[in-house]
């Protein structure tokens, strides 16, 4: 075949840019992020407005049901607890702490977990062996045991809680990131970059890390959910946040004794935890779709 036969026109591909699917992904991210944003703003802004009932004790109004049930009043929209304290006020301040714990708890687990997984997966060799042993050791330890040991030693406080969340969360993040990194480093574009003279840090942080963004976002949102659930479980066991601070988990714990007489004390925080974790996980899914250029096509 001669060269002249191969003279070709420039190729313009009939592949159309994927616009509509991208918009759909953005829409679902928006509709999932909206209630989360509203909740976050509500729990942070409501206390500043002075609209909430004051949270003091009122022994004449203990275990009042929510306003929409018979016997309830709009003075206490979600009712009162056994000391007559307003539950809406507690619910809002507990929500604030729960959201902070969820976000910070996810960050402290994702940060070191992702970094260690990335290093292990990319450099392999002894780095990988050391980190893998640490991951296995961490995963072999029952989480309650770790939490008990740390809290018994250090006492219950927010920094200790974050330490527990970091220790119980990093290993899963590291393991997932390590596997994903190993898959990406074998791709030929990594060899191509090396051939172009790219340094190892550039390859790791400019190419492999962005390709892990979907995984990390998914892990991050799952971790927010996990952190909230772990905190709730710890608070339920009396190992989480301690009064005067309260979270939805600690409200749930304090409501458990009252379930037969005043179910609403535990019901609303429990519902809030479920809905929040569900929304966060769905948002993670939507973000995953939004961030992956290949998924956007569909």
């Amino acid at each position, binding site marked *: 075949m001669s060269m002249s036969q191969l003279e070709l026109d420039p190729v313009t591909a009939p592949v159309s840019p994927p616009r509509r699917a991208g918009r759909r992904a953005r829409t679902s991210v928006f509709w999932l992020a909206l209630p989360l944003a509203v909740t976050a703003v509500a729990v942070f802004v409501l206390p500043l407005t002075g609209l909430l009932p004051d949270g003091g004790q009122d022994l004449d109004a203990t275990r009042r049901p929510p306003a929409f049930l018979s016997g309830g009043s709009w003075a206490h929209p979600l009712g009162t607890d056994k000391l007559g304290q307003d539950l809406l006020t507690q619910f809002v301040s507990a929500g604030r702490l729960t959201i902070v714990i969820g976000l910070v708890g996810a960050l402290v687990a994702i940060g070191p977990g992702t970094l260690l997984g990335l290093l292990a997966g990319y450099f392999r060799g002894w780095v990988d062996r050391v980190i893998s042993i640490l991951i296995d050791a961490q995963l072999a330890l029952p989480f309650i045991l770790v939490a008990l040991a740390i809290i018994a030693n250090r006492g219950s406080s927010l920094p200790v809680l974050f330490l527990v969340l970091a220790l119980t969360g990093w290993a899963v993040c590291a393991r997932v990131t390590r596997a994903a990194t190993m898959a990406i480093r074998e791709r030929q574009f990594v060899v191509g970059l090396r051939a172009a003279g790219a340094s190892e840090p550039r390859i790791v942080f400019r*190419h492999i890390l962005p390709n892990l963004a979907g995984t990390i976002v998914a892990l991050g949102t799952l971790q927010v959910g996990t952190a909230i659930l772990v905190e709730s479980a710890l608070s339920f066991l009396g190992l989480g946040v301690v009064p005067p601070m309260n979270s939805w988990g600690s409200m749930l714990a304090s409501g458990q004794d009252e379930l037969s007489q005043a179910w609403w004390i535990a019901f609303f925080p429990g519902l809030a935890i479920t809905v929040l974790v569900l929304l966060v996980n769905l948002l993670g899914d939507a973000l995953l779709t939004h961030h992956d250029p290949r998924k956007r096509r569909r």
Partner: protein
Amino acid sequence: MSEAAETGVPGDLARHPRTPESDTPVLEVDDLVVEHRDGGTGALFRAVDQVSLRIGAGESVAVVGESGSGKTTLAMAATGLGPRGRGDIRLLGHSLAAVSRTQLRRLRPEVQVVFQDPHGSLDPRQSVRSGLRELRALQPERTSWIDDADLLGRVRLAPDLLDRYPHQLSGGQAQRVCIARALLMRPRLIVADEPTSGLDVSVQADVLALLRQIRATTGAALLMISHDLAVVRSLCDVVHVMYRGRVVEAGPCDRVFGTPENDYTRELLAAMPGARWRSRR
């Protein structure tokens, strides 16, 4: 309209600065041995066994053999991009065992690789344009000779593809982008590892023509890895036949394909549709 249209015929490589002529071989490999350790059993597997290879400036050399014969391992080791193994490798006269990391990074752009899977060779999160921008940032002096639109014109791609992501390109387009990225670096050696295997037949011919044209106009040497003897015959001067990690026969293409001495080479030739075509002629 873009500059590609103004610069005349797309695909015209005449303005490409030719690689300076030199007697130093681009690549010399002596008695290379590369061994892999099996992850499960821990047993050593010899992927490349006592292989020697020499590619002169502007020369076109092929390594052929069946899957698993060690072709790619050989190419990656020889270019310092994979496990290096034992044996002496000299890239442009520099022994890879003796060069420092910094020197190696400076040497690497002299060798560019075009892979079998064009989509795997491009970062899925980078558009064509940002990929080229990164190469320019990495090697500002090497890459300043041409702008993006003109470069794509040389591999016969329209400049509107610059803003596409790899998944928005067809296989043939992605492979042309890969060739353009290699071309941008003005390498002295292009390693083409099964560059047409993942493409359909009509596109294969285009890619081969493009490689041939680039070689003719830039003076870059070519190391072609393939199991397709027809491809090799159309593009290469010298062929090395590999079988189970060893080079069983080597020589000029005409000689090896015309009067093969080794049994394995004869088997390989008999298995190729191209060989039947040749014998009928």
